[in-house]
């Protein structure tokens, strides 16, 4: 058994506090109470997938409220994208408005949050312009694509090409549902097809295809696609399969906060029967490696 629950809450918070100190951050630590059976958190954790849905009047307030819970779970940094309310097929005006919300939240996060720019490839030129505004000339470090269009469509090509030039990973929602997909909702297989056309780009399969057993298989042979584990139930065995089939360096933790809890998604990693070195890669090592060039280019520590 590779994971050990016999660590107290104090140890969890100490681990989280050490991570914060290591990252040069101050954090408001909650009251330390001993609770039973908590998992260790000695790893540095970056959450690669979250949204601004939370109480608060402004994007910054919403993010600050979410970070209070991230603190409790020992999460050092979060990646956020899309504003509110959500739009499945946003017009250029709409995705610019939502990206402004994310920019505002990131700006006030004192380095705790990174932003990915939300685009709609059906508006190809407007998306390219927005990519330049938010990533090339702005502080954002990746691209988020959701359900506006199937991701193997040709309209994605110029966007992925430009993202690769900027060293920005492209995180694409992928989900295959036996109950039926949304009209523009992509599958992991479609992302693999896109990735095969762009070997220099890094593609992130958000939700690992949703139905993760076929999803992991669909991206297995396409080395520039990494699996991000967020958004589904905390089903046991997901991370074990992803590590077995893809290698630990192609698996990334994200939660899809605030619709999902940090707890249920972190559990997928903390509870997985994989080596601690694999957990370290999944919890932050891989996303930090992927983002290192663009963070360095922007002077973000």
């Amino acid at each position: 058994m590779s994971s050990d629950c016999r660590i107290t809450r104090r140890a969890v918070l100490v681990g989280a506090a050490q991570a914060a100190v290591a990252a040069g951050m101050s954090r408001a630590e909650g009251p330390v109470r001993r609770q039973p059976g908590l998992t260790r958190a000695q790893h540095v954790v970056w959450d690669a997938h979250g949204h601004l849905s939370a109480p608060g009047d402004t994007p910054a307030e919403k993010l600050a409220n979410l970070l209070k819970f991230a603190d409790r779970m020992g999460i050092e940094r979060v990646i956020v994208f899309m504003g509110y309310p959500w739009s499945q097929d946003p017009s250029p005006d709409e995705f610019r408005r939502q990206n402004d919300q994310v920019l505002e939240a990131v700006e006030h996060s004192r380095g705790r949050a990174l932003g990915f720019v939300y685009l709609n490839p059906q508006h190809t030129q407007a998306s390219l312009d927005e990519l330049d505004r938010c990533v090339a000339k702005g502080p954002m470090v990746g691209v988020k694509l959701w359900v506006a269009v199937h991701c193997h469509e040709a309209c994605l090509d110029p966007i992925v090409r430009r993202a690769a030039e900027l060293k920005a990973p492209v995180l694409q929602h992928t989900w295959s549902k036996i109950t039926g997909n949304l009209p523009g909702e992509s599958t992991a297989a479609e992302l693999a097809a896109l990735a095969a056309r762009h070997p220099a780009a890094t593609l992130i399969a958000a939700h690992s295809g949703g139905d993760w057993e076929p999803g992991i298989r669909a991206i297995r042979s396409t080395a520039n696609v990494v699996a991000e584990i967020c958004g589904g139930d905390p089903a046991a065995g997901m991370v074990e399969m992803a590590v077995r089939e893809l290698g630990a360096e192609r698996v990334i933790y994200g939660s899809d906060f605030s619709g999902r809890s940090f707890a249920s998604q972190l559990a997928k990693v903390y509870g997985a029967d994989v080596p601690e070195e694999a957990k370290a890669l999944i919890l932050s090592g891989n996303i930090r490696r992927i983002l290192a060039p663009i963070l360095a280019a922007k002077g973000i520590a």
Partner: protein
Amino acid sequence: MITDVNVNLSRWPFRRLPCDEPARLVERLEACGVTQAWAGSFDGLLHKDLGGVNARLAEDCRKAPAGLLRPFGAVNPTLPDWREDLRRCHEDYHMPGIRLHPNYHGYRLDDPLFAELLAEAERRGLVVALAVRMEDPRMQHPLTRVPDVDTGPLPALLANRPGLRLVLLNALGPLRGAAITSLIGAGQVCFEISTLEGVGGIGSLLDRFPLDRLLFGSHFPYFLLESAILKLQESDLSAEQVKAITRENAASILAK
């Protein structure tokens, strides 16, 4: 000390799970501080010989460290002679309760058989644990698509069964808002946290949900046990709230 009201033995039909052997399941429960687990059997979902399922469940629980696993046998009121399964759970195996899977067993809650089963369980003083779902319906096997249980008829049934103790498993999330409120108001119904989602989920639920109706449940080993454990850390709960959720509420259900 945690009482986990939602644990399953044997094999999930569609996937091997890392902790689906009794030894590993027990090891992980103990490592995470679970001192009592109310256990059903995955075999109860699709097997027709529920007598055999429940005999194995009782035996597996008996072999576990004393008091750790409390068996909840499966009863399917559409099977011939289901009352004998219920009698064995109660009289032969001394189970504290039974586990129902109406969606896998193919009946609706407005079926008169279900009302009869509730009446019998109440008469025998058995806790009824009813699983609203077992897995996300979006990712089910194409040949085994099982919708969530429609709990609509439940409040009216509970109104006539003041002595019945009902625990709804995997229900928070699948059920929301008014559906939960009407169940809480109708009788002795408790929920558990395995499928409760959202950042700070327990804390925000308790803003509008009675503390004495909330139980610790993990849906382990289908879900990772750590998910429910870490939810206790994510919300800023008082020591009293943690105690109520993790053991006192479950203990008072068994004490009734």
